[in-house]
């Protein structure tokens, strides 16, 4: 077995070799970790391991996934205490001394086992006015937008969010202030604030500047560190703070 300097096990497979996987099992807030021994294979992801347990060891295990290729954002879980997209996380990269711990996403209620309830996450997306309010009807021509304009570049920097809630699980401010809108909703709001076609900027800026909004961010940058798409919600939130400050100075907020 090759061992990485950080203790992770790459090329972990060998005949009879297993990984000791501790999965969180339970309903709502009651439950605990249950250990399963899973065969170690080359090139298996965390999602492969969870699927192996569900199909071969205990078919009552609940978990969520869809595309398996890092597009849909459904399969995020806590792996060894860190939020990750499990379909794109190589087991050998995160297994430490033959052990893994997989739990449901932090900062969200648990429905069952590894399935977190995403309702608060998407409710906040709505509360931050994350819906696009277009300035034209479908009967009109599409508005030409210059891709190299400063506003479009700012919007494009955050547009690839897949709403996996990894940033939300990584955010300590959400843990301390459960009503805080969180990095994903604010990042979405920032992309719309820079979309020249959108007509709800004033209401949105008011929404993200309210007591549970962007000013709660301490710029810890955990959202940026763990975002699987390498987005920077901290920068988006800083942009919203600056935008709100300018509006407040002009008496427009």
């Amino acid at each position: 077995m090759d061992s990485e300097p950080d203790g992770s096990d790459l090329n972990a497979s060998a005949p009879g070799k297993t990984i000791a996987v501790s999965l969180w099992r339970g309903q709502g807030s009651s439950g605990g970790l249950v250990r399963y021994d899973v065969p170690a294979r080359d090139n298996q992801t965390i999602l492969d391991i969870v699927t192996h347990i569900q199909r071969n060891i205990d078919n009552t295990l609940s978990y969520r996934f869809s595309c398996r290729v890092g597009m849909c954002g459904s399969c995020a879980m806590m792996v060894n205490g860190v939020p990750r997209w499990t379909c794109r996380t190589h087991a050998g990269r995160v297994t430490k001394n033959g052990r893994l711990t997989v739990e449901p996403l932090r900062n969200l209620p648990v429905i069952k086992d590894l399935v977190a309830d995403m309702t608060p996450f998407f409710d906040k997306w709505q509360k931050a006015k994350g819906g696009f309010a277009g300035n034209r009807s479908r009967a009109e021509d599409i508005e030409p937008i210059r891709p190299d304009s400063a506003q479009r570049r700012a919007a494009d920097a955050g547009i690839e969010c897949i709403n996996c809630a990894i940033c939300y699980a990584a955010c300590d401010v959400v843990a301390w202030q459960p009503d805080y809108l969180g990095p994903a909703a604010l990042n979405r709001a920032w992309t719309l604030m820079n979309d020249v076609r959108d007509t709800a900027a004033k209401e949105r800026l008011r929404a993200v500047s309210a007591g549970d909004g962007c000013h709660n961010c301490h710029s810890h940058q955990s959202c940026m560190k763990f975002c699987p798409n390498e987005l920077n919600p901290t920068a988006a939130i800083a942009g919203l703070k600056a935008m709100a400050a300018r509006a407040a100075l002009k008496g427009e907020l």
Partner: protein
Amino acid sequence: MLDARLFLLQRATAVLMAPLVLIHLALIIVAVRNGLDAAEILSRTRGSWLWGSYYSLFVIAASIHAAIGLRVIGFETLGGSRRIWDLTTILIALLLAPLGLRAVFALVAS
């Protein structure tokens, strides 16, 4: 919105305090060269409206800055209603400012 205004106020007081802190640190180094002596400090500050204004500004900025910071720390650590913490912010600022200004007054006008 209150949070946007408090955010601005905290940044503005930070910008104001940055040079004040540097001058204060430099002053400490100069003042203690011959040992820390109350009479020497008072001989410099007594009747000096320049130092009185300087430290009064410092006290007011620090009172506002600290109160806004403590509002967030208090809310995140102890929870409760945001409204109560908004009122606590004002109370903390109103407590800190007179204490500091009283000390400035003692240095300059006593």
